[in-house]
């Protein structure tokens, strides 16, 4: 028995104009078959207009143990969010 088919991560653009979103994974011997499997497995209900397939092994993920240093520094940069600023009512929408 030869090796197991590698795992692929599947990203689908649900509608024109939206980002591709991770929807799940599947097994396939190569990228072309992964693409076709993704079509058959993940768009049975007309869910997509575009598919990306990525070998799971090619994904570099942030380390959970570094979650603090990685993400917490952005928590106090509240001035990046529009709600930080008061705009007088008479100015209207900005």
């Amino acid at each position, binding site marked *: 028995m*030869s090796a197991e088919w590698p795992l692929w991560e599947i990203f689908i653009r649900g509608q024109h104009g939206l980002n591709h979103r991770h*929807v799940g*994974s599947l097994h396939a011997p190569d990228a072309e078959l992964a693409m076709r499997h993704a079509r058959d*497995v993940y768009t049975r209900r007309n869910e997509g207009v575009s598919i990306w397939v990525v070998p799971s092994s090619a994904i570099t993920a942030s380390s959970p143990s570094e979650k603090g240093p990685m993400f917490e520094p952005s928590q106090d940069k509240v001035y990046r969010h529009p709600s930080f600023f008061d705009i007088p009512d008479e100015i209207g929408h900005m």
Partner: protein
Amino acid sequence: MYAQMVKSEATQDDPEALAAFQARIDAGEKIEPKEWMPEGYRKTLIRQIGQHAHSEIVGQLPEGNWITRAPTLERKAILLAKVQDEAGHGLYLYCAAETLGVSRDELTEALLAGKMKYSSIFNYPTLTWADIGAVGWLVDGAAIMNQVPLQRTSFGPYSRAMIRICKEESFHQRQGFDIMRKMANGTKAQRHMAQDALNRFWYPSLMMFGPSDKDSVHSAQSMAWKIKMNTNDELRQKFVDQTVPQAEYLGLTVPDPDLRWNAEKGGYDFSEPDWTEFFEVLKGNGPCNAERLAARQKAWDDGAWVRDGLMAHAAKQRSAPIAAE
């Protein structure tokens, strides 16, 4: 309910880490694959998600038994689409289990070697077309009771798989009930088949929730970890309360002489299934255990050359440009 009697694993981790982990779960956080988790949590999840996945795959067989005999083209298409969904759900669940460090092939081999279980319900035969109705109505009905709360389970990949599955399954129970309605309102023979299907599937459906686990240590641990969301008895009661009025609507009789509405508890009193039978089925002595596993084994063995052949081609393609240079 497709995962039954999942034994939770004892865990021997640092108490401080365990407490911090529990606090995250209590706060409603999702646990993601690469984050620290107790060994017991990981092993219990592999067993539970694996069993759930196996149930989807083996669950294709009793209904698949009628795809070639569906009585209209539309029924054939609907049933095929439904059984296909089950293959998809098995696939999603195997992928969720794989994030915990076990491969799909390993899980498959454990199933075939009898080291992992699948739901007892799929060891019962589908003898008439009404059984396809009963499976959708009762078996999917029972499964949905369990799967809807599992969308909130603590393990991220499992939760996301359940969300997708619940969305797709919403038509499964309805198609079963629709078949039952046609049969129950049909000819004398059809009504007979409908009642007979209910008679045969009622108690096995109640067994799907597993025996009472209100005093079980394993269940308490799984519930604390939010990989089990309700007790077996809660879900069984809910299932009976939901299903009895539906049976009445169909004009069918639930095969339980002791079934009574209990106003005080606001639910039905009903008879327990035969738990001796349940344990025999789990041990491999159900009416179809041998056939179900043999079918899966045959698909696995017969498919080996296809899986290997496609891998061989992919390997050739990868090496081809290098060889040419």
